[in-house]
Protein backbone atom coordinates (compact mmCIF):
# COMPACT_ATOMS: atom_id res chain seq x y z
CA UNK A 1 0.00 0.00 0.00
CA UNK A 2 1.51 3.26 -1.09
CA UNK A 3 0.40 5.74 1.48
CA UNK A 4 2.36 8.91 1.53
CA UNK A 5 4.14 9.72 4.76
CA UNK A 6 1.85 12.66 5.45
CA UNK A 7 -1.29 10.54 5.08
CA UNK A 8 0.14 7.89 7.32
CA UNK A 9 0.92 10.50 9.94
CA UNK A 10 -2.55 12.11 9.80
CA UNK A 11 -4.09 8.69 10.22
CA UNK A 12 -1.97 7.97 13.23
CA UNK A 13 -2.78 11.33 14.81
CA UNK A 14 -6.52 10.73 14.40
CA UNK A 15 -6.24 7.24 15.80
CA UNK A 16 -4.31 8.37 18.84
CA UNK A 17 -6.74 11.23 19.43
CA UNK A 18 -9.55 8.69 19.33
CA UNK A 19 -7.77 6.47 21.82
CA UNK A 20 -7.25 9.42 24.18
CA UNK A 21 -10.90 10.45 23.97
CA UNK A 22 -11.91 6.88 24.75
CA UNK A 23 -9.63 6.70 27.77
CA UNK A 24 -10.28 10.15 29.25
CA UNK A 25 -13.53 9.32 31.08
CA UNK A 26 -11.83 6.45 32.87
CA UNK A 27 -8.81 8.52 33.84
CA UNK A 28 -10.99 11.37 35.03
CA UNK A 29 -13.03 8.96 37.15
CA UNK A 30 -9.89 7.53 38.66
CA UNK A 31 -8.58 10.98 39.54
CA UNK A 32 -11.88 11.81 41.24
CA UNK A 33 -11.97 8.49 43.05
CA UNK A 34 -8.61 9.16 44.66
CA UNK A 35 -9.51 12.55 46.16
CA UNK A 36 -10.20 12.75 49.88
CA UNK A 37 -13.81 11.96 50.81
CA UNK A 38 -16.02 14.99 51.22
CA UNK A 39 -14.04 17.25 48.90
CA UNK A 40 -15.34 18.48 45.59
CA UNK A 41 -13.02 17.12 42.92
CA UNK A 42 -12.21 18.91 39.70
CA UNK A 43 -12.09 17.27 36.28
CA UNK A 44 -8.59 15.94 36.15
CA UNK A 45 -6.08 16.55 38.87
CA UNK A 46 -3.78 13.98 40.33
CA UNK A 47 -4.32 14.12 44.09
CA UNK A 48 -1.31 14.98 46.20
CA UNK A 49 -2.25 12.23 48.59
CA UNK A 50 -4.15 9.54 46.65
CA UNK A 51 -6.79 7.93 48.85
CA UNK A 52 -6.70 4.32 47.72
CA UNK A 53 -8.76 3.54 50.79
CA UNK A 54 -11.80 4.96 48.96
CA UNK A 55 -11.94 1.76 47.00
CA UNK A 56 -12.12 -0.25 50.20
CA UNK A 57 -14.94 2.00 51.42
CA UNK A 58 -16.78 1.59 48.14
CA UNK A 59 -16.32 -2.15 48.26
CA UNK A 60 -18.06 -2.33 51.63
CA UNK A 61 -20.70 0.29 50.89
CA UNK A 62 -21.62 -1.18 47.52
CA UNK A 63 -21.74 -4.66 49.00
CA UNK A 64 -19.53 -5.81 46.15
CA UNK A 65 -19.29 -9.41 47.26
CA UNK A 66 -23.07 -9.83 47.16
CA UNK A 67 -23.28 -8.03 43.82
CA UNK A 68 -20.67 -10.23 42.23
CA UNK A 69 -22.44 -13.32 43.48
CA UNK A 70 -25.79 -12.11 42.19
CA UNK A 71 -24.45 -11.27 38.74
CA UNK A 72 -22.70 -14.59 38.54
CA UNK A 73 -25.87 -16.45 39.49
CA UNK A 74 -27.79 -14.64 36.79
CA UNK A 75 -25.11 -15.31 34.20
CA UNK A 76 -25.06 -18.97 35.19
CA UNK A 77 -28.83 -19.09 34.86
CA UNK A 78 -28.96 -17.38 31.50
CA UNK A 79 -25.92 -18.15 29.40
CA UNK A 80 -25.58 -21.97 29.41
CA UNK A 81 -29.30 -22.56 28.83
CA UNK A 82 -29.46 -19.93 26.09
CA UNK A 83 -26.42 -21.31 24.32
CA UNK A 84 -27.65 -24.90 24.48
CA UNK A 85 -31.20 -24.33 23.31
CA UNK A 86 -30.08 -21.85 20.65
CA UNK A 87 -27.50 -24.30 19.35
CA UNK A 88 -30.12 -27.04 19.21
CA UNK A 89 -32.57 -24.77 17.43
CA UNK A 90 -29.89 -23.57 15.03
CA UNK A 91 -29.08 -27.20 14.26
CA UNK A 92 -32.75 -28.04 13.74
CA UNK A 93 -33.34 -25.08 11.46
CA UNK A 94 -30.02 -25.01 9.65
CA UNK A 95 -29.15 -28.70 9.29
CA UNK A 96 -32.26 -30.81 9.81
CA UNK A 97 -34.38 -28.27 7.94
CA UNK A 98 -37.49 -29.08 9.94
CA UNK A 99 -40.78 -28.64 8.11
CA UNK A 100 -42.21 -25.23 8.88
CA UNK A 101 -38.77 -24.12 9.95
CA UNK A 102 -38.92 -21.07 7.75
CA UNK A 103 -42.04 -19.93 9.56
CA UNK A 104 -40.43 -20.48 12.96
CA UNK A 105 -37.38 -18.58 11.80
CA UNK A 106 -39.54 -15.75 10.50
CA UNK A 107 -41.15 -15.46 13.92
CA UNK A 108 -37.71 -15.22 15.47
CA UNK A 109 -36.55 -12.57 13.01
CA UNK A 110 -39.48 -10.50 14.19
CA UNK A 111 -37.73 -10.20 17.52
CA UNK A 112 -34.31 -9.29 16.13
CA UNK A 113 -34.86 -5.53 16.22
CA UNK A 114 -37.33 -5.56 19.08
CA UNK A 115 -36.49 -2.92 21.71
CA UNK A 116 -36.76 -4.47 25.18
CA UNK A 117 -38.86 -1.47 26.23
CA UNK A 118 -41.60 -2.69 23.91
CA UNK A 119 -42.29 -5.80 25.97
CA UNK A 120 -41.14 -4.79 29.43
CA UNK A 121 -44.61 -3.84 30.70
CA UNK A 122 -46.32 -7.17 29.93
CA UNK A 123 -43.24 -9.04 31.17
CA UNK A 124 -43.61 -7.21 34.48
CA UNK A 125 -47.25 -8.29 34.86
CA UNK A 126 -46.46 -11.80 33.70
CA UNK A 127 -43.71 -12.13 36.30
CA UNK A 128 -46.05 -10.72 38.93
CA UNK A 129 -48.62 -13.39 38.03
CA UNK A 130 -45.94 -16.07 38.21
CA UNK A 131 -44.97 -14.75 41.63
CA UNK A 132 -41.39 -14.25 40.46
CA UNK A 133 -41.00 -10.49 40.89
CA UNK A 134 -37.97 -9.56 42.96
CA UNK A 135 -36.32 -12.89 42.33
CA UNK A 136 -33.46 -13.52 39.94
CA UNK A 137 -35.76 -15.74 37.88
CA UNK A 138 -37.61 -12.61 36.83
CA UNK A 139 -34.45 -11.50 35.03
CA UNK A 140 -33.23 -14.92 33.93
CA UNK A 141 -36.30 -16.31 32.17
CA UNK A 142 -37.19 -13.30 30.00
CA UNK A 143 -33.52 -12.68 29.15
CA UNK A 144 -33.10 -16.21 27.77
CA UNK A 145 -36.15 -15.65 25.59
CA UNK A 146 -35.11 -12.17 24.50
CA UNK A 147 -31.74 -13.53 23.36
CA UNK A 148 -33.31 -16.26 21.24
CA UNK A 149 -33.75 -14.24 18.04
CA UNK A 150 -30.09 -13.30 17.85
CA UNK A 151 -28.73 -16.55 19.29
CA UNK A 152 -30.72 -18.82 16.99
CA UNK A 153 -30.03 -16.56 14.03
CA UNK A 154 -26.34 -16.80 14.84
CA UNK A 155 -26.23 -20.57 15.24
CA UNK A 156 -28.46 -21.23 12.26
CA UNK A 157 -26.11 -19.14 10.12
CA UNK A 158 -23.30 -21.44 11.20
CA UNK A 159 -25.19 -24.70 10.71
CA UNK A 160 -26.58 -23.85 7.31
CA UNK A 161 -23.02 -23.39 6.09
CA UNK A 162 -21.99 -26.89 7.13
CA UNK A 163 -22.37 -29.15 4.08
CA UNK A 164 -25.44 -31.41 4.37
CA UNK A 165 -23.26 -34.24 3.02
CA UNK A 166 -21.54 -34.42 6.38
CA UNK A 167 -24.80 -35.26 8.13
CA UNK A 168 -25.66 -37.72 5.43
CA UNK A 169 -22.39 -39.52 5.80
CA UNK A 170 -22.97 -39.81 9.53
CA UNK A 171 -26.45 -41.17 8.88
CA UNK A 172 -25.07 -43.84 6.59
CA UNK A 173 -22.80 -44.88 9.40
CA UNK A 174 -25.89 -45.36 11.46
CA UNK A 175 -25.63 -42.55 13.96
CA UNK A 176 -28.81 -41.18 15.47
CA UNK A 177 -29.79 -37.54 15.23
CA UNK A 178 -28.56 -36.90 18.75
CA UNK A 179 -25.19 -38.51 18.04
CA UNK A 180 -24.93 -36.52 14.85
CA UNK A 181 -25.66 -33.36 16.79
CA UNK A 182 -23.54 -33.99 19.84
CA UNK A 183 -20.55 -35.89 18.43
CA UNK A 184 -20.16 -34.29 15.03
CA UNK A 185 -21.91 -30.96 14.70
CA UNK A 186 -21.31 -29.40 18.11
CA UNK A 187 -17.53 -29.88 18.06
CA UNK A 188 -17.46 -28.28 14.62
CA UNK A 189 -19.56 -25.39 15.85
CA UNK A 190 -17.23 -24.61 18.73
CA UNK A 191 -15.98 -21.23 17.44
CA UNK A 192 -19.52 -20.01 16.79
CA UNK A 193 -20.62 -21.24 20.21
CA UNK A 194 -17.66 -19.55 21.90
CA UNK A 195 -18.44 -16.20 20.31
CA UNK A 196 -22.10 -16.51 21.23
CA UNK A 197 -21.21 -17.35 24.82
CA UNK A 198 -19.03 -14.27 25.12
CA UNK A 199 -21.70 -11.99 23.70
CA UNK A 200 -24.44 -13.37 25.91
CA UNK A 201 -22.24 -13.13 28.98
CA UNK A 202 -21.54 -9.49 28.24
CA UNK A 203 -25.15 -8.58 27.50
CA UNK A 204 -26.39 -10.32 30.63
CA UNK A 205 -23.80 -8.75 32.89
CA UNK A 206 -24.66 -5.32 31.48
CA UNK A 207 -28.43 -5.73 31.36
CA UNK A 208 -30.07 -2.75 33.00
CA UNK A 209 -33.73 -2.31 32.07
CA UNK A 210 -34.92 -5.74 33.18
CA UNK A 211 -32.94 -5.48 36.38
CA UNK A 212 -34.40 -2.17 37.52
CA UNK A 213 -37.97 -2.99 36.50
CA UNK A 214 -38.24 -6.52 37.79
CA UNK A 215 -36.04 -6.59 40.86
CA UNK A 216 -36.06 -3.94 43.61
CA UNK A 217 -33.27 -5.38 45.72
CA UNK A 218 -29.95 -4.27 44.24
CA UNK A 219 -28.19 -7.34 45.61
CA UNK A 220 -30.36 -9.55 43.41
CA UNK A 221 -29.64 -7.63 40.23
CA UNK A 222 -27.09 -7.70 37.44
CA UNK A 223 -23.95 -5.60 37.73
CA UNK A 224 -25.39 -2.80 35.62
CA UNK A 225 -28.61 -2.77 37.62
CA UNK A 226 -26.65 -2.63 40.86
CA UNK A 227 -24.59 0.23 39.51
CA UNK A 228 -27.81 2.12 38.81
CA UNK A 229 -28.91 1.65 42.41
CA UNK A 230 -25.49 2.66 43.65
CA UNK A 231 -25.70 5.90 41.70
CA UNK A 232 -29.16 6.58 43.08
CA UNK A 233 -27.88 6.16 46.60
CA UNK A 234 -24.46 7.80 46.40
CA UNK A 235 -24.96 10.17 43.47
CA UNK A 236 -24.06 13.17 45.61
CA UNK A 237 -20.84 11.69 46.99
CA UNK A 238 -18.84 11.97 43.82
CA UNK A 239 -15.64 10.51 45.17
CA UNK A 240 -17.36 7.39 46.39
CA UNK A 241 -19.51 7.14 43.27
CA UNK A 242 -16.45 7.16 41.01
CA UNK A 243 -14.62 4.67 43.19
CA UNK A 244 -17.64 2.37 43.30
CA UNK A 245 -18.27 2.60 39.56
CA UNK A 246 -14.67 1.76 38.75
CA UNK A 247 -14.84 -1.13 41.18
CA UNK A 248 -18.01 -2.48 39.63
CA UNK A 249 -16.34 -2.22 36.21
CA UNK A 250 -13.24 -4.11 37.26
CA UNK A 251 -14.50 -7.69 36.85
CA UNK A 252 -15.72 -6.97 33.31
CA UNK A 253 -12.46 -5.26 32.44
CA UNK A 254 -10.38 -8.14 33.75
CA UNK A 255 -12.39 -10.70 31.81
CA UNK A 256 -12.21 -8.47 28.74
CA UNK A 257 -8.46 -8.03 28.94
CA UNK A 258 -7.87 -11.77 29.35
CA UNK A 259 -10.12 -12.73 26.46
CA UNK A 260 -9.79 -9.52 24.47
CA UNK A 261 -8.96 -11.27 21.21
CA UNK A 262 -12.07 -13.45 21.43
CA UNK A 263 -14.19 -10.56 22.66
CA UNK A 264 -13.26 -8.32 19.77
CA UNK A 265 -13.80 -11.12 17.29
CA UNK A 266 -17.18 -11.93 18.80
CA UNK A 267 -18.29 -8.31 18.92
CA UNK A 268 -17.21 -7.67 15.35
CA UNK A 269 -18.87 -10.80 14.01
CA UNK A 270 -21.87 -10.21 16.22
CA UNK A 271 -22.56 -6.81 14.80
CA UNK A 272 -21.74 -7.86 11.25
CA UNK A 273 -24.33 -10.60 11.36
CA UNK A 274 -26.86 -8.94 13.60
Amino acid sequence: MNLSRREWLTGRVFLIALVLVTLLPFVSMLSAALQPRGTVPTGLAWPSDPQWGNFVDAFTVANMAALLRSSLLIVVGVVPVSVVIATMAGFGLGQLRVPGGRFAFGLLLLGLTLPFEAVITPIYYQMRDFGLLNTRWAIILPLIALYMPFAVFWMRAHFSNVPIELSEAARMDGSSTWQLFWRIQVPLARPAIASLTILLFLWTWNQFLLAIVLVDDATKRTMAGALGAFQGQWGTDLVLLCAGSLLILTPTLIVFLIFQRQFIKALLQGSLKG
Partner: protein
Amino acid sequence: MTSAPGSARTGPAATPSPGPSNHSSPVRPHRRRWGRTARWSGWLYVLPAMLMYAVFVLRPLALTFQYSFYDWNGIGVARWAGLDNYLTVVTDSDLLKIISNAFILIIFFSLIPVALGLLVASLVRRITAGPFGTAVRTILFLPQVIPLVAAGIAWSWLLSSNGLVNQVLRAVGLGGLARAWLGDFNTALPAVGVIGAWVLLGLCTILMVTGMSKIDPALYEAARIDGAGPVREFFAVTLPSLRHEIGVCLTVTVIAALASFDIVYISTSGGPGLQTTVPGLEIYRLAFSQRQVGLASALAVVLMLLVLACVLPIQRLTREGKE
Protein backbone atom coordinates in the same frame (compact mmCIF):
# COMPACT_ATOMS: atom_id res chain seq x y z
CA MET B 1 -43.13 -43.37 10.11
CA THR B 2 -41.58 -44.42 6.85
CA SER B 3 -42.84 -42.85 3.70
CA ALA B 4 -43.01 -44.70 0.42
CA PRO B 5 -39.64 -44.17 -1.17
CA GLY B 6 -39.85 -42.41 -4.43
CA SER B 7 -43.45 -41.28 -4.20
CA ALA B 8 -44.07 -38.58 -6.72
CA ARG B 9 -45.45 -35.95 -4.39
CA THR B 10 -43.75 -35.39 -1.12
CA GLY B 11 -44.93 -33.06 1.56
CA PRO B 12 -43.10 -30.00 2.65
CA ALA B 13 -41.06 -32.26 4.87
CA ALA B 14 -38.90 -33.41 2.00
CA THR B 15 -38.70 -30.12 0.21
CA PRO B 16 -35.25 -28.78 0.74
CA SER B 17 -35.50 -25.17 1.73
CA PRO B 18 -33.56 -22.93 -0.60
CA GLY B 19 -30.48 -21.85 1.15
CA PRO B 20 -26.77 -21.60 0.85
CA SER B 21 -26.37 -25.38 1.06
CA ASN B 22 -25.40 -27.40 -1.96
CA HIS B 23 -28.42 -29.63 -1.74
CA SER B 24 -28.74 -30.00 -5.46
CA SER B 25 -27.93 -33.65 -6.03
CA PRO B 26 -30.98 -35.79 -6.82
CA VAL B 27 -32.57 -37.21 -3.72
CA ARG B 28 -31.83 -40.86 -3.25
CA PRO B 29 -34.63 -43.03 -1.82
CA HIS B 30 -32.94 -44.12 1.39
CA ARG B 31 -32.03 -40.59 2.24
CA ARG B 32 -35.59 -39.49 1.93
CA ARG B 33 -36.75 -42.19 4.30
CA TRP B 34 -34.64 -41.01 7.21
CA GLY B 35 -34.95 -37.50 6.00
CA ARG B 36 -38.65 -37.23 6.60
CA THR B 37 -38.66 -38.74 10.08
CA ALA B 38 -35.57 -36.88 11.10
CA ARG B 39 -37.00 -33.63 9.88
CA TRP B 40 -40.14 -33.97 11.92
CA SER B 41 -38.34 -35.21 14.98
CA GLY B 42 -35.98 -32.30 14.43
CA TRP B 43 -38.64 -30.14 15.98
CA LEU B 44 -37.52 -31.56 19.31
CA TYR B 45 -34.37 -29.50 18.80
CA VAL B 46 -36.18 -26.35 17.80
CA LEU B 47 -38.92 -26.56 20.38
CA PRO B 48 -37.17 -25.47 23.62
CA ALA B 49 -35.99 -22.24 22.06
CA MET B 50 -39.34 -21.54 20.43
CA LEU B 51 -41.21 -22.32 23.64
CA MET B 52 -39.16 -19.85 25.68
CA TYR B 53 -39.52 -17.31 22.91
CA ALA B 54 -43.28 -17.80 22.73
CA VAL B 55 -43.86 -17.51 26.47
CA PHE B 56 -41.52 -14.64 27.28
CA VAL B 57 -41.41 -12.64 24.05
CA LEU B 58 -44.30 -13.40 21.70
CA ARG B 59 -46.92 -13.47 24.44
CA PRO B 60 -45.74 -10.18 25.97
CA LEU B 61 -45.59 -8.72 22.49
CA ALA B 62 -49.19 -9.69 21.83
CA LEU B 63 -50.14 -8.28 25.23
CA THR B 64 -48.44 -4.98 24.40
CA PHE B 65 -50.72 -4.72 21.37
CA GLN B 66 -53.72 -5.69 23.49
CA TYR B 67 -52.97 -3.23 26.31
CA SER B 68 -52.50 -0.46 23.79
CA PHE B 69 -56.24 -0.52 23.04
CA TYR B 70 -57.23 -0.22 26.67
CA ASP B 71 -57.26 2.34 29.39
CA TRP B 72 -55.71 0.52 32.32
CA ASN B 73 -53.93 1.54 35.50
CA GLY B 74 -52.38 -1.89 36.02
CA ILE B 75 -54.60 -2.82 38.95
CA GLY B 76 -58.27 -2.04 38.35
CA VAL B 77 -60.57 -2.94 35.52
CA ALA B 78 -59.33 -2.14 32.03
CA ARG B 79 -61.61 -0.03 29.89
CA TRP B 80 -61.71 -0.39 26.10
CA ALA B 81 -60.22 2.72 24.59
CA GLY B 82 -60.08 1.91 20.91
CA LEU B 83 -57.49 4.02 19.16
CA ASP B 84 -57.49 6.76 21.78
CA ASN B 85 -54.02 5.89 23.07
CA TYR B 86 -52.57 6.00 19.57
CA LEU B 87 -54.32 9.29 18.92
CA THR B 88 -52.69 10.67 22.05
CA VAL B 89 -49.27 9.45 20.92
CA VAL B 90 -49.50 11.20 17.56
CA THR B 91 -51.15 14.42 18.79
CA ASP B 92 -49.85 15.08 22.30
CA SER B 93 -47.13 17.70 21.99
CA ASP B 94 -45.06 16.25 24.85
CA LEU B 95 -45.05 12.77 23.35
CA LEU B 96 -44.20 14.14 19.91
CA LYS B 97 -41.30 16.04 21.42
CA ILE B 98 -40.14 12.85 23.12
CA ILE B 99 -40.23 10.97 19.83
CA SER B 100 -38.40 13.76 18.03
CA ASN B 101 -35.73 13.66 20.76
CA ALA B 102 -34.98 10.08 19.75
CA PHE B 103 -34.51 11.18 16.15
CA ILE B 104 -32.20 13.98 17.18
CA LEU B 105 -30.15 11.41 19.05
CA ILE B 106 -29.66 9.55 15.75
CA ILE B 107 -27.43 12.42 14.63
CA PHE B 108 -25.14 11.77 17.58
CA PHE B 109 -25.46 8.01 17.96
CA SER B 110 -25.33 7.20 14.25
CA LEU B 111 -24.20 9.93 11.93
CA ILE B 112 -21.24 11.20 13.92
CA PRO B 113 -19.73 7.76 14.69
CA VAL B 114 -20.27 6.58 11.13
CA ALA B 115 -18.80 9.75 9.60
CA LEU B 116 -15.83 9.87 11.96
CA GLY B 117 -15.32 6.13 11.63
CA LEU B 118 -15.20 6.46 7.86
CA LEU B 119 -12.79 9.36 8.09
CA VAL B 120 -10.41 7.58 10.42
CA ALA B 121 -10.67 4.35 8.45
CA SER B 122 -9.84 6.02 5.16
CA LEU B 123 -6.86 7.70 6.75
CA VAL B 124 -5.58 4.66 8.57
CA ARG B 125 -6.54 1.98 6.04
CA ARG B 126 -5.53 -0.80 8.35
CA ILE B 127 -4.50 -1.27 11.93
CA THR B 128 -1.36 -3.29 12.09
CA ALA B 129 -1.27 -6.64 13.81
CA GLY B 130 1.54 -5.55 16.12
CA PRO B 131 1.26 -4.47 19.76
CA PHE B 132 0.28 -0.93 18.76
CA GLY B 133 -2.64 -2.25 16.74
CA THR B 134 -3.75 -4.60 19.50
CA ALA B 135 -3.63 -1.83 22.07
CA VAL B 136 -5.65 0.50 19.83
CA ARG B 137 -8.27 -2.13 19.16
CA THR B 138 -8.58 -3.07 22.80
CA ILE B 139 -8.96 0.50 23.97
CA LEU B 140 -11.43 1.44 21.26
CA PHE B 141 -13.55 -1.52 22.28
CA LEU B 142 -13.69 -0.60 25.95
CA PRO B 143 -16.93 1.40 25.62
CA GLN B 144 -18.58 -1.66 24.09
CA VAL B 145 -17.67 -3.84 27.02
CA ILE B 146 -18.63 -1.68 29.98
CA PRO B 147 -22.30 -1.26 30.88
CA LEU B 148 -23.97 1.81 29.36
CA VAL B 149 -24.81 2.78 32.93
CA ALA B 150 -21.10 3.16 33.64
CA ALA B 151 -20.64 5.28 30.53
CA GLY B 152 -23.52 7.41 31.77
CA ILE B 153 -21.97 7.87 35.21
CA ALA B 154 -18.52 8.65 33.83
CA TRP B 155 -19.83 11.24 31.42
CA SER B 156 -22.19 12.80 33.96
CA TRP B 157 -19.05 13.54 35.90
CA LEU B 158 -17.10 14.76 32.87
CA LEU B 159 -19.92 17.08 31.82
CA SER B 160 -20.73 18.39 35.31
CA SER B 161 -19.87 21.95 36.33
CA ASN B 162 -16.55 20.88 37.88
CA GLY B 163 -15.92 18.24 35.26
CA LEU B 164 -13.12 17.78 32.81
CA VAL B 165 -14.96 19.41 29.89
CA ASN B 166 -15.35 22.69 31.74
CA GLN B 167 -11.84 22.42 33.13
CA VAL B 168 -10.49 22.21 29.60
CA LEU B 169 -12.68 25.09 28.44
CA ARG B 170 -11.44 27.28 31.28
CA ALA B 171 -7.84 26.32 30.59
CA VAL B 172 -8.08 27.51 26.98
CA GLY B 173 -9.81 30.72 27.95
CA LEU B 174 -13.33 29.70 27.00
CA GLY B 175 -14.52 29.63 30.60
CA GLY B 176 -17.53 31.68 29.55
CA LEU B 177 -18.91 28.61 27.82
CA ALA B 178 -18.58 26.45 30.89
CA ARG B 179 -21.85 25.16 32.28
CA ALA B 180 -23.51 22.07 33.69
CA TRP B 181 -23.94 20.57 30.25
CA LEU B 182 -26.49 17.94 31.18
CA GLY B 183 -28.56 20.34 33.24
CA ASP B 184 -28.73 23.18 30.74
CA PHE B 185 -31.94 23.41 28.76
CA ASN B 186 -30.14 23.98 25.46
CA THR B 187 -27.24 21.61 25.78
CA ALA B 188 -28.72 18.63 27.62
CA LEU B 189 -29.83 16.65 24.58
CA PRO B 190 -26.60 17.14 22.60
CA ALA B 191 -24.67 16.28 25.76
CA VAL B 192 -26.54 12.99 26.05
CA GLY B 193 -25.83 12.51 22.36
CA VAL B 194 -22.11 12.95 22.98
CA ILE B 195 -22.21 10.08 25.48
CA GLY B 196 -23.80 7.83 22.87
CA ALA B 197 -21.29 8.94 20.26
CA TRP B 198 -18.45 8.06 22.63
CA VAL B 199 -19.90 4.59 23.19
CA LEU B 200 -20.40 3.80 19.52
CA LEU B 201 -17.45 5.56 17.91
CA GLY B 202 -14.91 2.83 18.62
CA LEU B 203 -17.11 0.05 17.31
CA CYS B 204 -17.85 1.90 14.08
CA THR B 205 -14.20 2.81 13.56
CA ILE B 206 -12.98 -0.74 14.00
CA LEU B 207 -15.74 -2.14 11.80
CA MET B 208 -14.80 0.33 9.06
CA VAL B 209 -11.09 -0.29 9.38
CA THR B 210 -11.69 -4.04 9.23
CA GLY B 211 -13.80 -3.53 6.12
CA MET B 212 -11.10 -1.28 4.68
CA SER B 213 -8.43 -3.93 4.99
CA LYS B 214 -10.51 -6.22 2.77
CA ILE B 215 -10.52 -3.77 -0.12
CA ASP B 216 -8.14 -4.72 -2.88
CA PRO B 217 -5.24 -2.21 -2.84
CA ALA B 218 -5.18 -2.43 -6.63
CA LEU B 219 -8.41 -0.44 -6.66
CA TYR B 220 -6.64 2.46 -5.00
CA GLU B 221 -3.65 2.19 -7.27
CA ALA B 222 -5.96 2.23 -10.27
CA ALA B 223 -7.69 5.29 -8.88
CA ARG B 224 -4.37 7.04 -8.35
CA ILE B 225 -3.23 6.24 -11.85
CA ASP B 226 -6.48 7.74 -13.13
CA GLY B 227 -5.46 10.88 -11.29
CA ALA B 228 -8.04 10.71 -8.53
CA GLY B 229 -7.39 12.82 -5.46
CA PRO B 230 -8.13 11.64 -1.95
CA VAL B 231 -11.70 12.94 -2.17
CA ARG B 232 -12.51 11.25 -5.49
CA GLU B 233 -10.81 8.13 -4.20
CA PHE B 234 -13.04 8.18 -1.16
CA PHE B 235 -16.25 8.43 -3.16
CA ALA B 236 -15.20 6.09 -5.96
CA VAL B 237 -13.54 3.31 -4.01
CA THR B 238 -13.92 3.55 -0.25
CA LEU B 239 -17.58 4.38 0.05
CA PRO B 240 -18.95 1.72 -2.32
CA SER B 241 -16.65 -0.96 -0.93
CA LEU B 242 -17.69 -0.27 2.63
CA ARG B 243 -21.39 -0.29 1.86
CA HIS B 244 -22.01 -3.40 3.91
CA GLU B 245 -20.05 -2.14 6.93
CA ILE B 246 -21.79 1.23 6.79
CA GLY B 247 -25.11 -0.59 6.77
CA VAL B 248 -24.14 -2.60 9.83
CA CYS B 249 -22.99 0.49 11.73
CA LEU B 250 -26.13 2.41 10.83
CA THR B 251 -28.40 -0.46 11.84
CA VAL B 252 -26.73 -0.99 15.20
CA THR B 253 -26.47 2.70 16.04
CA VAL B 254 -29.95 3.72 14.87
CA ILE B 255 -31.49 1.03 17.06
CA ALA B 256 -29.28 2.22 19.93
CA ALA B 257 -30.53 5.78 19.44
CA LEU B 258 -34.24 5.08 19.05
CA ALA B 259 -34.37 2.52 21.83
CA SER B 260 -31.98 4.36 24.15
CA PHE B 261 -32.73 4.07 27.83
CA ASP B 262 -29.75 3.31 30.09
CA ILE B 263 -27.66 6.38 29.29
CA VAL B 264 -30.57 8.80 29.57
CA TYR B 265 -31.92 7.24 32.73
CA ILE B 266 -28.56 7.57 34.45
CA SER B 267 -27.28 10.89 33.17
CA THR B 268 -30.40 13.10 33.13
CA SER B 269 -33.51 11.02 33.96
CA GLY B 270 -35.03 12.78 30.99
CA GLY B 271 -34.59 16.33 32.28
CA PRO B 272 -34.38 19.22 32.43
CA GLY B 273 -38.09 19.33 31.64
CA LEU B 274 -38.60 16.90 28.82
CA GLN B 275 -35.44 18.00 27.02
CA THR B 276 -33.81 14.58 27.04
CA THR B 277 -36.76 12.25 27.56
CA VAL B 278 -36.77 9.47 24.98
CA PRO B 279 -39.54 6.97 24.16
CA GLY B 280 -37.92 4.14 26.12
CA LEU B 281 -37.78 6.24 29.26
CA GLU B 282 -41.31 7.54 28.77
CA ILE B 283 -42.65 3.98 28.39
CA TYR B 284 -40.98 3.11 31.68
CA ARG B 285 -42.39 6.19 33.39
CA LEU B 286 -45.89 5.85 32.01
CA ALA B 287 -46.12 2.17 32.83
CA PHE B 288 -44.51 2.10 36.24
CA SER B 289 -44.83 5.56 37.77
CA GLN B 290 -47.94 7.03 36.23
CA ARG B 291 -49.80 3.75 35.83
CA GLN B 292 -50.96 4.55 32.31
CA VAL B 293 -50.30 1.11 30.94
CA GLY B 294 -52.44 1.60 27.82
CA LEU B 295 -50.66 4.73 26.72
CA ALA B 296 -47.25 3.22 27.54
CA SER B 297 -48.10 0.23 25.37
CA ALA B 298 -49.27 2.37 22.47
CA LEU B 299 -45.99 4.26 22.66
CA ALA B 300 -44.16 0.93 22.77
CA VAL B 301 -45.91 -0.20 19.57
CA VAL B 302 -45.07 3.09 17.88
CA LEU B 303 -41.44 2.79 18.97
CA MET B 304 -41.25 -0.73 17.60
CA LEU B 305 -42.67 0.38 14.27
CA LEU B 306 -40.32 3.37 14.11
CA VAL B 307 -37.33 1.10 14.64
CA LEU B 308 -38.51 -1.17 11.82
CA ALA B 309 -39.28 1.80 9.57
CA CYS B 310 -35.71 3.02 10.00
CA VAL B 311 -33.84 -0.27 9.95
CA LEU B 312 -35.52 -2.06 7.05
CA PRO B 313 -34.66 0.62 4.44
CA ILE B 314 -31.07 0.72 5.70
CA GLN B 315 -30.81 -3.05 5.32
CA ARG B 316 -32.36 -2.91 1.88
CA LEU B 317 -30.11 -0.14 0.62
CA THR B 318 -26.87 -1.57 1.93
CA ARG B 319 -27.41 -5.26 1.23
CA GLU B 320 -28.22 -4.69 -2.43
CA GLY B 321 -25.68 -6.05 -4.81
CA LYS B 322 -24.18 -8.04 -2.02
CA GLU B 323 -26.30 -11.07 -2.73
